[in-house]
């Protein structure tokens, strides 16, 4: 039986890979994917702790996270599409309209 802490370690590792993906890649789509990865890492932690504590609350939260992720994906991908149409790029460096 894998103890809960192992799941936590896996969750942490996946999360940090997601973080590095956000920071290292310049393609906004991949950045977006990395964010999804981070969300899932957190979900994993929730579910494992839900199991460890024997409480179903964690799973409810995961449910909500998924919903939010779905909405986020819809809007976020819409934004990416719109931006691409305007600026013909998915390069994060070149998308800096919010600059000072």
């Amino acid at each position: 039986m894998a103890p809960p802490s192992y799941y936590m370690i896996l969750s942490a590792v996946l999360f940090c890979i997601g973080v590095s993906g956000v920071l290292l890649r310049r393609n906004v789509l991949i950045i977006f994917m990395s964010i999804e990865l981070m969300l899932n890492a957190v979900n994993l932690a929730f579910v494992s702790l839900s199991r460890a504590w024997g409480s179903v609350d964690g799973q409810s939260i995961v449910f909500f996270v998924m919903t939010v992720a779905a909405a986020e994906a819809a809007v976020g991908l819409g934004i990416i599409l719109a931006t691409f149409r305007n600026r013909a790029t998915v390069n994060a460096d070149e998308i800096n309209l919010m600059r000072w």
Partner: protein
Amino acid sequence: MPLWLFIFLAALAIIGAAGVVLQRHPVHSLLSLVMTLVVIAVLFIGLGAATVGFLQMIVYAGAIMVLFLFVIWLLNLQSQPLEPGHLALKFLGSLGSAALIAELLLFVVHPPPAITQNRAVAMDFGSIGRLAQSLFTDYLIAFEATSVLLLVGVIGGVALARRTTAGGGGAPGGTP
């Protein structure tokens, strides 16, 4: 879940995650992500959260990822080299990620976890019924709110992605 199986799945998940970051072609990245998500879904089921695990499989690995795929095709993205870009950013990003993972690991091992064993649970733990009971009692308002959120997300997605026609109602970001 036996330990060896967990380690195997964990390795798969990590390989998939690394693939997301390292693959040059967005589609390859996406496929790696799908692999990770599926592995996570398996882990969910292994943890007894069957409902959530299947949801993960269907909604995440299925629907959302297909959305991504469509977008990639729509944009006709080709593989791009891992250009050097901002070296400072890369360096600091790597460093930060490393520091964060080190810290998180330290959190897990130190002090020793309070719970080393999973608690015994009822058979229906993780079933749709239990989950539904939780969602429709304790989290009712949040649940309703998510429905609104999804609606807003759908509308927003449509509005953003829609191609504006001349003289049409000026969707945000829609001026070519």
